[in-house]
């Protein structure tokens, strides 16, 4: 543990945060433009060329907006909740391998913050923490719609986390490691989506549920719960919820890419390591578009159907997948 290591880590962390914040900002822009196209509209196009400065304008607006806290709210938790939503989103980014080893001013640099031995478990752990923010936001607002949103979130997360964890087991078994870096390295020749189509589908669905994206956005549910857990929020606190959601969209896309779509692997990466992040960026772009596309296409699920789907369809399927994968590995000798 040397000082220079700390320096490298700190630098990497700062760069990661900046990238993620930028990603969050332009993910919102991306979504608004894409949905507008799908709905035969134009979308934001006034601020800057093609409306590219729109996220900045939005940010400025939210920063200067007046903050208020409902009279009977629990002030401490009301303030804490948005932070609890945003922070885990950033934390997830730490284990994603954005690229391989690249030369950088004469020294070799790994394009990830940490290669943790238990990275996938880390994803589960950190991902599960985010629910606290939502539940507490719902409870501390002292508003029954908010509370319902928070409760829905808790129930939804518990039901989908199991299937998600089991979907992760497939790639883990194939790669023989829980480290994301090793999993990506193992996909040099063939992407795991080929071996694990079922796990891929399950993971994508549960990832949407995990970040409360449509069609699983029941905790927010404007029409039912008037905004759900963030009904009472405005200004920067509201922006934090937003930030958490969109960073998670980006990070989850990155995770899906790393777990099933070969991560930074692609033609020519061995020769030109800097191609890795580019491939990664393209894949993330496609996956984020998929998320937007889904939102524009599918209606929201009914709450009881959502639970039933999680417990009675996804969970058994994920179990079956683990079972088949294990058998396949034993029979085919890995």
């Amino acid at each position, binding site marked *: 543990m040397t000082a220079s290591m700390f320096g490298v880590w700190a630098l990497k962390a700062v760069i990661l945060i900046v990238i993620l914040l930028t990603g969050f900002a332009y993910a919102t822009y991306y979504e608004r433009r894409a949905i507008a196209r799908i709905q035969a509209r134009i979308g934001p196009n006034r601020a800057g060329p093609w409306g590219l400065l729109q996220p900045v304008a939005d940010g400025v607006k939210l920063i200067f907006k007046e903050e208020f806290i409902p009279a009977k709210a629990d002030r401490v938790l009301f303030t804490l909740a948005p932070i609890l939503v945003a922070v885990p989103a950033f934390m997830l980014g730490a284990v994603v391998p954005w690229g391989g080893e690249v030369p950088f001013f004469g020294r070799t640099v790994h394009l990830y913050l940490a290669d943790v*031995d238990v990275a996938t478990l880390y994803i589960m752990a950190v991902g599960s923490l985010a629910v606290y923010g939502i539940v507490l936001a719902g409870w501390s607002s002292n508003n029954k719609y908010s509370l319902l949103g928070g409760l829905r979130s*808790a129930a939804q997360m518990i039901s989908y986390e199991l299937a998600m964890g089991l979907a992760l087991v497939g790639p883990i078994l194939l790669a023989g490691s829980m480290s994301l870096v090793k999993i990506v390295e193992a996909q040099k020749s063939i992407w795991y989506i080929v071996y694990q189509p079922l796990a891929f589908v399950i993971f994508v669905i549960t990832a949407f549920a995990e970040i409360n994206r449509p069609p699983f956005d029941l905790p927010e549910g404007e029409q039912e719960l008037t905004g759900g857990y963030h009904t009472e929020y405005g200004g920067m606190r509201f922006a934090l919820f937003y930030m958490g959601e969109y960073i998670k969209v980006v990070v989850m896309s990155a995770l899906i890419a790393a777990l099933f779509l070969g991560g930074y692997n692609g033609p020519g990466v061995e020769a030109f390591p800097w191609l890795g992040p580019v491939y990664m960026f393209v894949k993330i772009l496609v996956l984020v578009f998929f998320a937007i596309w889904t939102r524009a296409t599918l209606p929201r699920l009914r709450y009881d159907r959502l639970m039933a789907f999680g417990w009675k369809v996804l969970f058994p399927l994920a179990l079956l997948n683990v079972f088949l994968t294990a058998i396949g590995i034993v029979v085919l000798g890995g």
Partner: protein
Amino acid sequence: MSIDLLIFLGLALVAVGAALGMLFSRNTVYAVLFLVLVMLVLAVLYLILGAPFLALAQVTVYTGAIMVLFLFAVMVLGPQKLAEGEGPISWQRPWAFGLTALFLVEVVYAFAARVGGLGKLTCATAAAGSPAAIGKVLFNQYLLPFEVTSVLLLVAAVGAVVLTRE
């Protein structure tokens, strides 16, 4: 005083403080959150003690599942604020605190002065607490308990469903 000890003392202070917070908080939601904090600190301690797998399992299972369940229950049942100590056996409270304090003193005395032999903790190697190592022990040496535990979980799940059925 080494930096290790400093870090440990800091974590210990947070853990004990959070535990006391749980003990004395009137609001059940805060009690839950304090306990979550204790568990997170313990997870960090596990990491330091060379058990990364356990640390993350701790976060996933305890904070991610069990405590969320608690929070859920608290919110479903309503965070009832009970008047503590005014109950029908109010005499128990001073006794409980006195005796637990006595116990604490005895335990600290025992560990500080009487039990000397354990020595310093070995700094864990990376492989010791890895998933692979744990998996090997768990599925060879402790296979039967593992299976029994799985049955226990199944029974518990069935029991919970049956109990809460309308």
